[in-house]
């Protein structure tokens, strides 16, 4: 049981953060808040990948250090692949946020508000 907890607690926290992000997306009326929720959601997924990349025992970061940690034994190093993927994912996330900001400004310029309720009221007219 303790083993299961030690092995899984990172996942539970990731889930909590993911749910906070989803909550922001679903329940917040302000569009900037929604965007913040989106950012939290994205970073939480990054966290999931990074946390599964870790290895137990005598490991080091994925930078070659032949003297102390011979690369032939893969167990010496953290798995570099999820890290790489997440570099990409972070940049993608920033690009998405950039687009979201662009749209936010465009919406504000047209309707002078970023509140969902007020926007919908304006559409009805």
């Amino acid at each position, binding site marked *: 049981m303790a083993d299961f907890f030690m092995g899984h607690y990172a996942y539970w926290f990731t889930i909590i*953060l993911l749910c906070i992000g989803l*909550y922001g997306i679903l329940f917040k009326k302000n569009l900037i*808040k929604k965007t913040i929720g989106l950012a*939290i959601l994205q970073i939480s997924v*990054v*966290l999931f990948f990074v*946390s599964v*990349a870790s290895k137990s025992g005598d*490991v080091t970061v994925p930078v070659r*250090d032949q003297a102390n940690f011979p690369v032939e034994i893969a167990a010496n190093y953290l798995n570099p692949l999820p890290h790489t993927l997440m570099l990409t994912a972070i940049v993608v996330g920033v690009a998405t946020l950039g687009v979201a900001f662009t749209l936010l400004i465009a919406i504000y310029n047209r309707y002078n508000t970023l509140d969902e309720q007020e926007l919908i009221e304006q559409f009805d007219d």
Partner: protein
Amino acid sequence: MIFAVELVIWQLELVIYLFLALSAIVALEVRDLLVAVVMMTVFSFLMALLFIAMGAIDVGFTEAVIGAGVTGILFVVVVYQTSRKSKD
């Protein structure tokens, strides 16, 4: 460049997790959007810290520079360009 062995320090991670959740909730719940944005930046920095604690130095660095730095600036710009108040 030698990093500490036994990279999974769960006590540290746990503390950062708690602060992460806290900052995320504050960022979503606070009414002043500028504060929300600042909390978002804090969230990113904590996340970067966590990544580095987990041994993902590259990801942590990137998150710090791009996630916290650039996104933070852009967030601030958006808040200044639009409105600072939020109803929820």
